[in-house]
């Protein structure tokens, strides 16, 4: 070997080493299948300088246990967390999740979404990833075929449901077998539609009790739909998937669900590719949809690649990421400034969230969920009892109140 070729080989080795060192491969755990194309795109186009993301999707049912078990032995560099301090608590206590690095600037994000990544004391631990809207989702084709306009009051809704029932269509599809859907979706959408924001906020700070007439009405309205035969025959036998299937098939007209079911990767389009989904709030006194920061991107404090991890988190706060997110995931990003939305469906959702969404989120409130039985638990169990016909709305409200009082929640003294 001549000296010349020797130098070439050395240079080649150094170049390949430099490439190796620059391309840092990070692992990101998520339960969100819809983000797979987004992160593949980001890695393939090297949008975060020198960082590639190995996106590991774990089914939602298994997410928590797989994540916890893997974290015992290092775990991923980054992972997605569900919204709210209640979920974050054990990760913060264990030192897995640390307050966000000061270099990550969240000032460009919509302020209302930040709580998705905050602990009970307001410390920011994660970067929120999406704004979700929950409301009534309806099959536009079924509404049109039966000459129904979007109802603006509860009475109009009832009349529309009666028309649909007479035409042999199930007005409301309920998937009561899925407990998570009952508390995270039904409970919150009914509250946003029927209960004014101040009263709903009162539930969270303990100044309003769950036995309050306004809360009882949210339960009574659902019970009323069931008693009037406006729901599928066995609402507890159908799960979340069966509920969506019925609406996609046009056997049912409406369901209470998240706007994520209308996103481009929703399985509903596999049933009917031409399906068009409309959104409306439960048209009660408050008449608002429910919006919340869905969850957050979190850094594993024990990752050996802290610098690269922070680069990724910083990237998720940018306008560029927001536009990619809206385009490829089909959900609303948390970005607060102006960004382009091409999809008219998403633009409609963005409009509803901006102009007509409820801000109180009892489901994610730490004060209601820090003890057991938690508010989420009580509402899921409670709605099942209600749909089973074995409890009245008043008794259920009293039961939820008693369950929260049993561990001395924030309103316990006020609501005996």
């Amino acid at each position, binding site marked *: 070997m001549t000296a010349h070729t020797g130098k070439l080989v050395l240079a080649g080795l150094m170049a390949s080493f430099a490439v190796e060192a620059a391309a840092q491969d990070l692992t990101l755990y998520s339960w969100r299948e819809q983000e797979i194309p987004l992160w593949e795109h980001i890695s393939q186009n090297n949008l975060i300088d020198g960082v590639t993301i190995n996106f590991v999707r774990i089914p939602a*049912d298994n997410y*928590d*246990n797989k994540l*916890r*078990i893997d*974290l*015992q032995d290092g775990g991923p560099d980054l992972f997605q967390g*569900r*919204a*709210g301090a*209640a*979920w974050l*608590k*054990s*990760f913060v*206590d*264990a*030192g*897995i999740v640390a307050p966000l690095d000061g270099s990550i600037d969240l000032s460009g994000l919509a302020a209302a979404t930040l709580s998705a990544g905050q602990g009970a004391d307001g410390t920011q631990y994660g970067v929120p990833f999406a704004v979700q809207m929950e409301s009534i989702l309806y099959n536009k084709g079924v509404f049109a075929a039966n000459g129904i306009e979007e109802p603006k009051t509860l009475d109009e809704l009832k009349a529309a449901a009666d028309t649909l029932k007479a035409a042999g269509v199930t007005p409301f599809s309920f998937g*009561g*077998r*899925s*407990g*998570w859907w009952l*508390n*995270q979706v039904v409970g919150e959408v009914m509250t946003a539609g029927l209960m004014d924001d101040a009263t709903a906020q009162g539930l969270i700070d303990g100044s309003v009790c769950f036995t309050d007439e306004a809360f009882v009405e949210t339960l009574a309205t659902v019970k009323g739909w069931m008693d009037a035969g406006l729901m*599928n*025959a*066995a*609402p*507890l*036998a*159908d799960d979340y998937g*069966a509920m969506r*299937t*019925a609406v996609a098939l046009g056997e049912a007209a409406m369901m209470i669900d998240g706007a994520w079911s209308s996103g481009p990767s929703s399985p509903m389009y596999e049933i009917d590719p031409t399906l068009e989904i409309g959104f409306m709030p439960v048209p009660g006194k408050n008449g608002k949809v429910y919006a919340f920061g869905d969850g957050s991107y979190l850094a594993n404090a024990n990752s050996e690649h802290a610098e690269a991890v922070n680069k990724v988190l910083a990237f998720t706060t940018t306008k560029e990421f927001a536009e990619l997110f809206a385009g490829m995931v089909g959900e609303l990003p948390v970005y607060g400034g102006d960004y382009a939305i091409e999809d008219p469906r998403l633009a409609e959702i963005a409009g509803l969230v901006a102009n007509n969404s409820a801000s109180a989120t009892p*489901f*994610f409130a730490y004060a209601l*969920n*820090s*003890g*057991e*039985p*938690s*508010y*989420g*638990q009580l509402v*899921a*169990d409670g709605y*099942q*009892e209600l749909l*089973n016909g*074995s409890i009245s709305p008043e008794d259920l409200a009293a039961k939820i109140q008693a369950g929260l009082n*049993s561990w001395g929640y924030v309103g316990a003294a006020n609501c005996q």
Partner: protein
Amino acid sequence: MAKMSYNRKANLQRIALLTPGLLLFGIFNFLPLVALLGLSLVNWPGIGDADFVGFENFRKLAREPYYRDQFVNALVQNVWMFVLIIGAMLLLGSALALLLSFGTTGRGAYRAIYFLPYPLAGAAVAFLLDLMVQPRGAINTFFVKTMGWWDAPIGFLGDTDLALPTLAMFYAWHRMSFAIVLILSAIVGVRVILLEAAMLDGASRWRMLKAVVFPVLAPAFVLITVIVMVDVFNNADYTLLLMGPEAGPLRSTDVLGTFLFRTSFGGSATSVNVNFGMAAAIGLVTALLILPAALFLALKNLRKD
């Protein structure tokens, strides 16, 4: 060196034969059980540091209504599920095994059909079950639309009285061939001379079954009972797959396995107090509850042989 006595040799052989099994059992069964005891004394969410709490988890399980009520409910339903499953497996299993033993034409084919579900994964059976019993599933479609016998679909898994028996019946269907094979081999083992003697004495077919065949079947029954008992009290795959960790509707399908899972991994996004320690305590108490029954049956079986 003196020649080894026969007894000494036999003892050495016994030790050599038992050691590998004992080692494997010790490493994979006994040590984890001891570790479980340690785990049951802490409060640990699965990550970070564990808090030593002594017997607090056991105290909560016995005293605190939140845990106690769930435990009692899960235990009672677990027993009910076991009774349903073992009843179906022993009764139907014996009947089918008897039919197969009678030299029926095409029994090879029957045997294959009965055995088909057994190698299926639990998850596949659970999925199949769901397709069958959903309100728009095969059973409801058949009886409501095809035959017109029912006015409305029956929500098998949404009915607090029907959900657990539905799961139990599918469990029994899935494992039935295991019972059939064991019972059939016992039937085949019945000594023909005994049957011939009974026949010569003029015994009826039923009498022969009762006096000659069934006593021989008892060990197979006991074996099936012990294996199914241990499985039904320790696992909850169908319930977890179909009803989720919350074991709905209204906890009507909750068994010890789902209660344990929910305690260690949480049921919903708002379960904040997940505790592997409590789950370990539940596991230990479950083991203690079924151990006497399993031992009694197994030892009884040994003596019979």
